[in-house]
């Protein structure tokens, strides 16, 4: 609640700052102040239940400690993101403040996706998340790739919106007591009516599209590749995990009772996602595109939570969000500084920039899921949830086999950094400040800490 309103407000503040402040660097600090403020407000709500504004939302938004913790994670990651990549906004174009404003609006949508309790709010939240992203994707105007990405994203995005709305309509039509409240559809436990089934499939399709799960992932590589790298970093992490949270929340609260009836869909989607994400990533030459595919692969792992749909799954999802976002943000922050986005561009980075190389290695190990990193803990929770589910254990085996494959492409970068010689001794990276290095180290440290002591986050879930 606090987060939604404050971030919306701060978005407006950023807009006006764009009008009144001409300085290039000022917006970053305003934005930082804002994100900290939002974080604090959210923390206050989480910790003491303080509400800054007293709206009567008629239960359209329900914020338990679980949702608030997730919002906190998202906001925390955004803070790290601002700190690490804030300076690189300028590379995209002159409208720095506007970019920040849009990101705040996205955050507003994220918060709505985390707390929605009616399909209307879900719809609004997702739209509020998406529309600014269409713009951000296209924000690098002179770059044709950026334009193309924007149009593709927009067309397919609105297409999926259409599907989603049709789904909502059928849910409404099928629900015995004509309600958009996700916990009030009243399905009982028997075989679900056909209208509900149709709506469910359509909702699943559109949500899968948002979290870039196969076979609805096609926009992902192109958009992530075409969008300005700073924004790719944002939308491939926070937005995506928000989508996941919404996905789980929706399906748990509305269709949780009849889980068994739609599990096969999830299995199909999960397998397809794991397969396409992991296999296709192997051959990529551009790190940016490879990370796009890897994000699909990670989505495949997160889908295990939807497959399991139990306590561990939800805990794991929150943890996964943190681990995955931090690591990916870190990698992208380094990638933005690189001159050459291909894997060969990383050759010999270990010599030139040992610190960057080490932190990058930690991020990659976390993405691979090596113990002592947050990535391991999150994968571990996912697997645990999936095993606990008890239904079709084999999917877990398949998942870990794909995880092994994922090592293949993550380690290509590590190998390049440490074991390959640079083609020529041109500098790989530019404007590396001490502050940047410190922040990278902090991010890495966070990942390690979460890897050793995940309760740092999980402790809040049941506060």
């Amino acid at each position, binding site marked *: 609640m606090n987060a939604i309103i404050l971030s919306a407000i701060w978005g407006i503040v950023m807009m006006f700052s764009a009008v009144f402040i001409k300085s290039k660097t000022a917006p970053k600090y305003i934005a930082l102040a804002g994100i900290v403020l939002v974080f604090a407000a959210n923390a206050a709500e989480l910790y003491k239940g303080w509400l800054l504004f007293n709206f009567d939302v008629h239960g359209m938004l329900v914020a338990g400690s679980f949702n608030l913790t997730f919002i906190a994670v998202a906001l925390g990651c955004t803070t790290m993101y601002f700190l690490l990549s804030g300076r690189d906004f300028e590379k995209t174009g002159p409208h720095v403040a506007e970019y920040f404003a849009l990101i705040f609006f996205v955050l507003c949508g994220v918060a709505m996706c985390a707390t929605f309790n009616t399909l209307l709010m879900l719809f609004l939240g997702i739209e509020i998340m998406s529309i600014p992203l269409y713009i951000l994707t296209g924000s690098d105007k002179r770059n044709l790739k950026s334009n193309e990405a924007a149009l593709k994203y927009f067309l397919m995005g609105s297409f999926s919106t259409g599907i989603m709305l049709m789904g909502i309509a059928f849910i409404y039509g099928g629900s015995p007591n004509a309600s958009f409240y996700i916990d009030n559809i009243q399905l009982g436990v028997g075989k679900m009516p056909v209208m509900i089934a149709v709506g469910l499939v359509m909702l699943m399709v559109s949500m899968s*599209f948002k979290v870039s799960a196969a*076979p609805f992932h*096609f926009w992902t590589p192109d958009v992530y590749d075409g969008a300005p790298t700073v924004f790719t970093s944002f939308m491939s992490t926070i937005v995506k995990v928000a989508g996941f949270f919404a996905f789980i929340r929706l399906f748990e609260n509305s269709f949780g009772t009849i889980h068994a009836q739609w599990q096969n869909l999830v299995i*199909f989607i999960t397998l397809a996602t794991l397969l396409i994400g992991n296999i*296709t990533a192997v051959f990529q030459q551009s790190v940016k595109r490879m990370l796009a595919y890897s994000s699909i692969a990670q989505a495949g792992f997160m889908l295990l939570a939807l497959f399991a749909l139990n306590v561990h799954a939800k805990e794991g999802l929150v943890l996964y969000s943190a681990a995955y976002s931090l690591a990916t943000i870190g990698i992208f922050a380094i990638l933005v500084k690189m001159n050459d986005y291909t894997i060969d561009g990383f050759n010999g980075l270990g010599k030139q920039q040992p610190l960057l190389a080490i932190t990058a290695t930690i991020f990659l190990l976390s993405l691979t899921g090596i113990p002592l990193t947050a990535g391991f803990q999150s994968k571990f929770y996912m697997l645990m949830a999936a095993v606990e589910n008890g239904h079709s254990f084999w999917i877990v085996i398949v998942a870990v086999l794909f995880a092994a494959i994922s090592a293949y492409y993550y380690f290509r970068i590590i190998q390049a950094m440490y074991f390959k010689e640079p083609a020529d001794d041109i500098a790989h990276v530019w404007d590396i400040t001490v502050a940047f290095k410190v922040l990278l180290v902090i991010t890495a440290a966070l990942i390690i800490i979460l890897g050793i002591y995940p309760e740092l986050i999980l402790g809040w879930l049941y506060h």
Partner: protein
Amino acid sequence: MNNVLQIAWLIPILPLIGFMINGAGRNVLSKGISGFIGSAVVFASFLLSVYVFIQVKNGNTHVAHYFNFISVDFLKIAFDFKIDQLSSLFLLIITGVGFLIHVYSTSYMHEEPAKDFAKYFAYLNLFVFSMLILVMGANYVIMFIGWEGVGLCSYLLIGYWFKNNDYTNAANKAFIMNRIGDLGFLLAVFWLIAKAGTVSFDEVFSAATLAKLSTTDITGITLLLFVGATGKSAQIPLYTWLPDAMAGPTPVSALIHAATMVTAGIYMIARSNILYTMAPLTQGVVAIVGLTTAVLAATIALKQNDIKKVLAYSTVSQLGYMFLGLGVGAYTGAVFHVMTHAFFKALLFLGAGSVIHAMGGEQDMRNMGGLKRYMGTTHLTFLLGCLAIAGMPPFSGFFSKDEILAAAYANNPVLWGIGVITAMMTAFYMFRLYAMTFVGKFRGTHEQEHHLHESPAAITIPLIILALLAVIGGWVGIPEVFMHGGHRLEAFLEPVFEQSNAITVKHELSHATEYMLMGISVAGALIALLYAWNKFSKYEKTEVPSAGFSKLVENKWYVDEIYNAIIVQPLRSLSVFFNNVVEKKGIDGLVNGTGKAVNYGSRQLRWLQSGQVGAYVLLMVIGILVLFIIQLFL
């Protein structure tokens, strides 16, 4: 534990110390010192052995316990030495003959550089040590320690001149063939452990344990042990290493490959005689294998021209004899023959060594002849040796061989018949050797002729002593028919074999038969001897390509070639197959194939991402279609 024999540990330790000194100080010690140390330690342990022997003679046998080697669960293997009649006898032979050969070596190896000289003595001492462990061990495991130890030493000594690849090949062959035997030995031990739960002789041979073992067990165990014996004592099918082992220095051949190591098999079987007596099947096998080996080796020896090769094959054949003895239950006879054989065969080898020494390394008898004019002592002692091995009364060989033959006859006349023929062959090739070497006129080159001389005292004295023993050595076992109570050895060894004797039915031969047997064998031997003598005393070098049977024999029945064809080559090609096909193409191919498959799949899946919005949406629609079908119609 206050038994005086507790000091038995000194006997093996002394040579070990010698080995350490010589081994460690081989760069500093002069030849004189290392030679002296090498011999002195063995002499010391010889004296101790004599003391021990006297103790035992006075009826004091003892199992000296030192420490627990291995103790797991039910399995307790103690580091014990068993001092009884059998082992003490062997102690005497080993240390005694060993000492003489050490002395001999000091002179024989004198051309070697000092450090190799020391190395040589170190190895020799190590061998004596292992051999002593072998005979003193109070259980099969300790015995096995010595068993492999001697194998190792023979490997090292055969490969003593390691620069020559043929020699090192011979060494490898010896070791590996021994390993094959050892596997048999080990399996027997494991069988014992599994069934009897113990390996110590006293416990295994105790009536209680024997009761636990079924006939199959005993037969199996004894057969496996016998496999071990065939390896160590060069019996069919594992005998081919011994002739090649002649690559080593001659004294080594004398000590290891004639007098001591190769008799380990006999010792072991004599040690476990009760088991064998309880397994008639095995006994049969032992007898037949022994006899076959004897005949085969003898035939090969007929045509050999290398002086050492002849002796080597004769050794194999004699060992066959001993196994025949064991097979027919004449344990005493076998041990007796071991002893006498140790004397005369060592003598012969050393003599041959002296000859080779004189000939400047020449080993081909066709280039010798008439040496008796140049080297009297050697010739005389050698002659005595030949007579002894040919079984001429009253030389030692006669008694031991006769005892075995008698036992064989008692068991089955056919065995006896073949035995006699073998004996005749023995006499023949020995005197062929003798005649070609010492009689006739010299066939070597002139510088060799100039070089010819009698060997120094360090060589001749051992020869003389051994000759003496070869002559009188047999008198400890004069058969009943000549002198009542003449067989002192049998009386002495009685306690060792009493269990067996208790259960074997002794069919006494009438005196007449015995005389008849002796007569025939001696006569046969004599005929062969004389025939060989006058055939080869006037031998001339003639290059007649031999054919038919003789060719077969000359090429040692092609046994090496056969083994090579049916074992070595297949193994090699199998390995190559494994390495090149199964490993590289098969398993590793599979592993790498997975990686390749992933790469390929990756390259193909990328085309799905065509970049066309239309195509994307189309695929999405198809995806939706699939989901609907799954949900609504499956």
